[in-house]
């Protein structure tokens, strides 16, 4: 995902803003990282450039 996506991303449960942590970035693309909702609290993973923002109960469905 691109960094500018952070302008609109929000927690799928409480809609609070998310905090980005980048583990691997190639050119402008965040390949591996995570998105933290401090309010819930819940961490959403970014893997293979795609953030997984499914609500936690759906993540492993």
């Amino acid at each position: 995902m691109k960094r500018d996506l952070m302008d609109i991303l929000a927690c799928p449960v409480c809609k609070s803003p998310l905090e980005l942590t980048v583990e691997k970035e190639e050119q402008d693309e965040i390949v591996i990282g995570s998105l933290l909702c401090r309010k819930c609290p819940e961490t959403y993973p970014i893997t293979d450039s795609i953030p997984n923002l499914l609500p936690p109960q759906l993540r492993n469905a």
Partner: protein
Amino acid sequence: MPRPRSRRPSTPLERYAADYDAWFEAPPGALQFPGEVDALRLLLRDLPRPWLEVGAGTGHFGSLLGADLGLDPSRAMLRRAWERGLPVVQGAGERLPFGDASFGGAFMITTLCFLSDPERALLEAHRTLRPDGGLLVADVLADRPWGLHYREQGRQGHPLYRYAQFHTLREMEELLGKAGFRVTRRACSVIQPPDRVREEERGWWGVGHTASFAALLSVRRES
């Protein structure tokens, strides 16, 4: 046509990305897809950006229509969409991971029928659209030739259509009304019935009685 509906979250069509993609690549899907895109383009002209596609699947519609972002619960589908150049987020239409008023346009193309809670997904679309934004909902109609055909295939255990809950045009408009939308423009395609698909379809203004595919552009009603 009221039907009981499960409140469980939408089932990601994870295992069927290849089946889903195959529809676009061979007749009759390959003859219908251009007509559906044509109908959608009639309605998209003045929609402000950015555009979100909810239920982007493998990204055929989104990449061709110029969506800015695609969302889908299925990782396997999204991988294909991403490879088509569409920026994507894995998520559920009923719980959109976006702030209020993030988008100028939102699309749900053959998505409403696969949502387990379409009412909630429409409310989420309403929340994430700007006041001047528009929602484009398009689907196969339950009571038209192709809707009847897919429903019969679903009853026989078709891997995708067994999960689909198609709506009539009236049901679609009622769902949109309940979620705070007002339909302003309509278009259609897929005029040839299942046993007579001979030529490439095109899009038409309005929803004629023989059309199986309806596209509705809605605006947020003043609250």
